[in-house]
């Protein structure tokens, strides 16, 4: 029977609660592989269709693992195996790297800072309302549109990088690792993920929250704690 992989913990970690349910209401069980314990669940098919509900259910299992006290190594959604034996084989082949990752993440959680940038929409509108557009040929209008889009992307990137550096400075003493991304659509925003010690969450939130007063911030949202998805890679 196919199985869905939720996360990995050390062999001695607490098992999942008996009442815990995962994707499609399936029970969550422990599958042991060497010095690892994998939280898995039975699945109807090997190749999963991603839905909002399934993503939430996957994350709920990881959240329960995180709340148990040991930081899990969360699996990317969609990690399924045809049989338990196949899963065990894959885990044992990477046991050293997975144990190293668990050790690296011990005592840490992921926090997120989501910043919606101000000013980009207003600038875009101002550029779009240029009256000289009415006299231009279709070709020139097209090139002007490309030019506006490139200008806005550069504006968003500059604004986002300034805020990312500002945020990094504010939370530096509470953060072990950081990753960020800048998005220009559907809304201009900066998304930052931080790896934070469990006992530093309160000062971290306080420090990150002061970014709200910075120019260029329309909305700021601090999320977490989460299982450390953004820092779970074992490559390299």
């Amino acid at each position, binding site marked *: 029977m196919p199985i869905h992989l939720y996360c990995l913990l050390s062999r001695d970690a607490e098992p999942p609660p008996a009442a815990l349910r995962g994707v499609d209401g399936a029970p969550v069980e422990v599958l042991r592989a060497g010095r690892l314990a994998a939280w898995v669940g039975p699945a109807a098919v090997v190749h999963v269709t991603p839905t909002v509900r399934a993503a939430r259910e996957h994350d709920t299992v990881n959240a329960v693992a995180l709340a148990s006290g040991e930081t899990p190594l969360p699996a990317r*959604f969609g*990690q399924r195996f045809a049989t338990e034996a196949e899963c065990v084989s894959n885990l044992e082949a990477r046991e050293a790297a997975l144990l190293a990752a668990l050790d690296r993440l011990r005592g840490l959680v992921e926090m997120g800072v989501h910043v919606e940038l101000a000013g980009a929409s207003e600038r875009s509108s101002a550029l779009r309302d240029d009256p000289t557009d009415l006299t231009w040929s279709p070709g020139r209008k097209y090139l002007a549109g490309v030019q506006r889009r490139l200008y806005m992307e550069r504006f968003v990137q500059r604004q986002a990088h300034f805020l990312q550096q500002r945020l990094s400075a504010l939370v530096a003493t509470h953060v072990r690792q950081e990753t960020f991304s800048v998005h220009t*659509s559907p809304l201009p925003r900066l998304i930052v993920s931080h790896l934070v010690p469990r006992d530093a969450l309160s000062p971290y939130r306080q420090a990150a929250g002061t970014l709200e007063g910075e120019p260029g911030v329309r909305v700021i949202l601090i999320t977490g704690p989460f299982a450390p998805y953004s820092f779970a890679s074992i490559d390299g």
Partner: protein
Amino acid sequence: MRDEHALDETERLVLGDLLNRVLDKGVVISGDVTISVADIDLIRLGLNLILSAAETELRHAAGRGDPRIGDDADPPLLPSEPGR
């Protein structure tokens, strides 16, 4: 009204954040993560496109009072099957 709009905005940001983490991050054990649409295996989907489309759809759904972003909702995150 202003507070209701702000709450919807927050819900969308939180959900988008969750989808970004769960679908695009996390440890990968067995090479590429394979997910399917209409029984067709798709390797290395452009998840950024999916997430952007999902966020756009959620914004539209919220704007028309669609309950699909609620806890019981189960909208597919990938394009509908061909021919539909």
